[in-house]
């Protein structure tokens, strides 16, 4: 498989490999384009390797280590030549950070996995913490509720970063959810394996979202967003659901998740 060209190491213009993540690729290509735009605005050179598929989470969380290892190795090979790997998802970012554990016992691959894990970043934390990017140029009039997805929040310590970036969006107020640390009930295959429990969790979450009175819900993970949008639409709520990158990139004019195209 052809490799990405060896990066020209310019500290000012790091070469970023964008891992779009499978859910964004299929469900929300707009998130991929928003990520591209933001990374470029922040001064990065961005490549999108074709060899990317999925980060391996469905296998890892199902206890299928051999499959996870196969996918991890392919992902490492596809991305290890970049200065950074950036994903518009805390949960997939967490997965890449888990690769050393996935490849435990294989010294060669574990070394490569560790090197990759160390340069893997979720999008908003990469923009805020690594690039110290403060040049958001976007406008959205209204109030948004921000949901902190679990892996991002607890594993990658992402909480202040999206808020700091959103604070630069003109016209926007960000509201915190009640019970901000509570999982939305997505959990990958959990939401279908244990649909009833997941439903209770997402129902509680939706009640919290509605309690904020915000007109838009934002988060940094397409999986959680599909889950919450799926419930909000099911109960007929007009709350719009978007990935945070869409707003930051000033691309919130496309239909929100679960909304039809056409005049709105």
């Amino acid at each position, binding site marked *: 498989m052809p490799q990405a060209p060896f990066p020209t190491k310019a500290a000012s213009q790091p070469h970023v490999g964008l891992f779009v993540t499978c859910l964004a690729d299929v469900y929300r*290509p707009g998130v991929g384009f928003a990520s591209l735009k933001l990374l470029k605005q922040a001064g990065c050179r961005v490549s999108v390797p074709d060899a990317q*598929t999925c980060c391996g989470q469905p296998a890892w969380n*199902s206890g*299928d280590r051999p499959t996870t290892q196969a996918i991890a190795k*392919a992902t490492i090979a596809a991305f290890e030549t970049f200065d950074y790997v950036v994903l518009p998802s805390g949960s997939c970012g967490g997965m890449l950070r888990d690769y050393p554990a996935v490849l435990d016992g294989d010294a060669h691959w574990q070394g490569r996995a560790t090197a990759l894990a160390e340069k893997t970043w979720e999008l908003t934390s990469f923009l805020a913490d690594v690039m110290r990017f403060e040049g958001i140029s976007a406008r959205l009039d209204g109030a948004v509720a921000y949901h902190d997805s679990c892996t991002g929040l*607890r594993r990658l310590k992402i909480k202040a970063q999206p808020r700091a970036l959103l604070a630069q969006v003109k016209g926007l107020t960000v509201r915190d959810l009640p019970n901000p640390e509570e999982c939305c009930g997505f959990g990958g295959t959990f939401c279908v394996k244990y649909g*009833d429990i997941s439903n209770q969790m997402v129902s509680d979450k939706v009640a919290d979202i509605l309690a904020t009175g915000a007109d838009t819900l934002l988060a940094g993970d397409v999986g959680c967003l599909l889950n919450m949008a799926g419930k909000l639409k099911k109960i007929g709520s007009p709350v719009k659901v978007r990935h945070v990158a869409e707003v930051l990139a000033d691309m919130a004019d496309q239909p929100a998740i679960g909304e039809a195209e056409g005049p709105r």
Partner: protein
Amino acid sequence: MQSTTRQFKDNARAALNDATLRQPLQKLKVGFRVRRAQAAEKLPEFETLRDQGRDLKNHVLENLDFYLETFATAVEASGGVVHWARDAAEAREIVLSICRDHNARTVTKGKSMISEEIGLNAYLADHDITPVETDLGEYIIQLRNEPPSHIIAPAIHVQKEMVADAFRATHTHLPADRPLSEPRQLLDEARAVLRDKFLAADVGITGANFLIAETGSTVIVTNEGNGDLTQLLPKVHVVLASLEKIVPTLEDAALLLRLLARSATGQEASSYTSFSTGPRRPGDPDGPEHFHVVLLDNGRSRLLGTEFEEMLRCIRCGACMNHCPVYGAIGGHAYGWVYPGPIGSVLTPALIGIEEAAPLPNASTLCGRCEAVCPMRIPLPKLLRHWREQEFSRHLPPGRTRLGLRVYRWFATRPALWRLATRAAALGLRMMGRKTGFLTRLPFAEDWTRHRVMPVPQGQTFMARYRAETDTPEI
């Protein structure tokens, strides 16, 4: 205790439909969570204490045989007797024979999860010995003939009207028309009834939060003082504890006590912390004439040296279940055995077998909140995943899941085919739901669409559009 863990899904559904559960579970979330957070906040060294607690327990587990022997020697030096029980059956027999040696008719009991684990109450009752639980919550569930639904608040699922019903049904010597609508009235009645039991008991059985190797002491914490009456009034005191409860010194116990109370209830210290060291000595004002410690293994030593060893650091504070969104949705009984919540989902497979407990490790979103609050820094999500791996390698997941993973692997390791497949999926779904932006029904995804709609993709995949728009060669 017989497990109903295999029926976890049905149990969970029943719990979700049980309207009486919503209020107590909501109370637990706001109560325990807020109080723990405040207690942790108020103690600047709390996070450091957690590290110290973890390191201490790791040290103990590495030298468990040494500390157990030290403990046993110290107990015997203070006039007590130590019994080693390999499994639940042995532990039950030991307790029964102690009771028989003293011609016991009634035993009082302080709260003990080990007693639940070995099914002691039913066993004693079968042998004509009446066990009486003295912790109010335990007493309530004993009357209701059900297992605890929480490790520190066993009757959290019982509303006060249900308590009144249980009291009326049991305390038939009291006037039938007495008022029992206020918590105070319930408490007073339980007190009066239990007071007589304390005085009549021949043997008192308690659990132990810690066993102290250097002194041979056992420690229990309670908020009701019932533990003291249980262990001091009868002439025989039996302590039931599992091996890993051991700590080297009194000072070590103090460290863990600070973590325990704050993590459990948000208290700085529990109302009563009681130390027992051997039987009454000449000149002691009170205390039992005989002191026995039953040390239960029941599969725990098998975990030493495995990836599950870290579970043995647990001090049973309950914080993981208080913060678990799954426990918060279904409560404790749905888990189907003694220990619910994240700790239960890790421990139960180890104690009753992964085949029997197969659903538990999977019933989690791995959100990580349990690990974030566990005072002993037990990586519960990682351990849940280890169990999933064991299940996978033993071919326990259903064929459909395994086939799905094979298909997934086949595509995910073939990027070109993956792109074709994702493109087809995106376009297909798009076509089906273009008008509304979502689908209300979708074949093979009923488990999703029963409760939610399925938002449809935007159209082309990102990868397809990106290649088309940027016209860049594939790299």
